[in-house]
């Protein structure tokens, strides 16, 4: 168990800069999740922490130790790969014990630790099997077991569940959360599944094109995003963004005309009032704050073009498939049908304002 501190890390492959000055820290025992779109550098950042890639500049510290130039095996880190990366010619027990053998541990001791880890992961019956004789979920557990036996200071996971089917993914997600509670180890977890990020993380690091966009607890990112990117990335279905014209200000709130919602004089409080009022802003509101029968003070009438019923709730789309579609949350038993107009309630206190550059106002 140890804290992780990264300062001003840079990494390029040839001419392309992939990590462009990342600084972050994870406290001892914390579960930190990196999220971001494909290609934003999540895996690269993880591999830099593991030591599988060397950074161009910047430093990585684990606990009090600067490990920037240290060999991967000497960093006190274990990594679980997206592809499991088991040794196919070795049994489950040999897979899990290989690291200990390399560390020079005696066989009886090794076997004891492997058995302990196997019990924890319900793998006891499979210790003699080869990886090809296991199911996907079992393989992933072996990969996790291989990490556990080495009792690392920090666990690194690179999209460990993305090869599993939906049901198994939920189960393994809970198992990993339990593992974190039981071991109390520092964990760094990469995913592009924001549900995984929200449910597992103590803190989320949102990355985009090699830069940190925002760091915070899941609820912080959800309820107080720093910019349009984070606001759009966290939450499902994604936040609605509509253009609005600023008509004035009143008592610390901006007055907006929002054509897309058919509203005028809508009063929204910005985070901080800018010195000069912009002519236009982007208004962001989540579907759950644009809800049928919701508590919002403002009534909005939306044309229903398509409806997606999930049972307990339903979602309305004004222009399905289009980026400009507005998504609103309906009651599960809503009588709305495509072609009709539905009245939903907008909650002005849950709206966010962004400037033309995508920054939160």
């Amino acid at each position: 168990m140890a804290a992780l501190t990264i300062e001003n890390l840079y990494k390029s492959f040839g001419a392309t800069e992939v990590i462009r000055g990342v600084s972050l820290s994870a406290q001892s025992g914390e579960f930190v999740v990196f999220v971001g779109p494909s290609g934003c550098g999540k895996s690269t950042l993880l591999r830099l922490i593991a030591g599988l890639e060397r950074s161009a500049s910047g430093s990585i510290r684990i606990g009090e130790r600067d490990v920037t130039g240290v060999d991967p095996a000497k960093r006190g880190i274990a990594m679980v790969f997206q592809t499991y990366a088991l040794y196919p010619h070795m049994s489950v027990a040999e897979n899990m014990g290989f690291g200990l053998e390399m560390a020079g541990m005696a066989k009886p001791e090794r076997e004891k630790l492997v058995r302990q880890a196997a019990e924890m992961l319900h793998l006891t019956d499979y210790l003699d099997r080869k990886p090809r004789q296991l199911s996907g979920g079992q393989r992933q557990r072996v990969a996790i077991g291989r990490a556990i036996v080495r009792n690392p200071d920090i666990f690194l996971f690179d999209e460990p569940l993305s090869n599993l089917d939906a049901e198994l993914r939920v189960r393994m997600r809970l198992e990993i959360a339990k593992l974190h509670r039981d071991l109390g180890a520092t964990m760094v977890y990469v995913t592009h599944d924001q549900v995984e990020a929200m449910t597992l993380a103590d803190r989320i690091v949102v990355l985009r094109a090699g830069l940190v966009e925002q760091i915070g607890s899941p609820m912080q990112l959800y309820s107080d995003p720093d910019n349009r990117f984070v606001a759009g990335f966290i939450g499902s279905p994604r936040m609605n963004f509509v253009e609005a014209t600023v008509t004035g200000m009143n008592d610390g709130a901006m007055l907006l005309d929002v054509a897309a919602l058919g509203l005028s004089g809508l009063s929204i409080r910005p985070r901080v009032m800018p010195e000069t009022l912009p002519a236009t802003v982007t208004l962001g509101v989540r579907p759950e704050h644009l809800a049928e029968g919701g508590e919002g003070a403002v009534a909005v009438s939306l044309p229903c073009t398509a409806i997606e019923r999930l049972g307990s709730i339903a979602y309305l789309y004004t222009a399905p498939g289009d980026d400009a579609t507005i998504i609103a949350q309906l009651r599960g038993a809503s009588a709305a049908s495509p072609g009709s107009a539905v009245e939903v309630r907008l909650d002005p206190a849950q709206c966010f304002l962004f400037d033309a550059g995508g920054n939160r106002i």
Partner: protein
Amino acid sequence: MNRSLGLNAALVACIAFFVTLVGLPFWWVVSGSIKIPQEIIARTPTMFPQSFTLQHYQKLFDASAYPVYLVNSLIVAASSTVLTLLLAIPAAYAFFRLVFPARGVLYRTILLAYAFPSIVVLIPLFGLFAKVGLVDRLPALIIVNVAFALPFSIWMLRSFLAGVPKEIEEAAVMDGAPTLTILRRIMIPLIAPGIASVGIYAFVTAWTEYVFASVLILSDAKRTLPVGFSGIIGQYQIDWGLLLAGATVAIVPVVAIFALIGRGFVSGLTEGAVK
């Protein structure tokens, strides 16, 4: 799969054609070696032996230098194979894994060895070996065979290594395995099919090599099978029975090595590692 009857028949016919094409000469040699001389030279050839005799084999082993050639060939081919593998595996891994100056250039250069027909290097090589006293000694043949088998072996093993998922090696690095341990414990088992192919390739090329063996070896007692055997058959008169018996025996080690290390050709060895 749902193949039509016609397609199935065509496939079977295809396979039968190739099996016949490849197998018929072998059958001719093997079956001929147990026929009595009169049947071998009979005007109408017999597909299946009408007679049975071991006289050709008896003559081959008791009254000719064939056993000596056989042993020489086995020594040369086996040593060449082992040496080729011992050198090619680390070399391929180095080309695959280590980053060193001029790696790419060197890698392409080794294949240049095949740009020259062996006959071109024969004379200078003879001069070279004469200087260091290797002429008329079996190690000379081993060196030549290894030198010619190596570039292709390295090239082939490297592509097998490249087929091993990168993460498996990285997992081993994270587990703290040093480079040579990764090679021995992880990579070699995973590229066993490649090693088997290269082994067979090295053995067969050494086993059948003729040009160098005919020039670099002078004394009869040091000859290998291809050269020695061609001497047994005779210049003016051909003993067909002896020829066929000798050819049959010469096939045996090759078949044996296929059976022995051909086991290494298990496919799907990395199955279950990554997905």
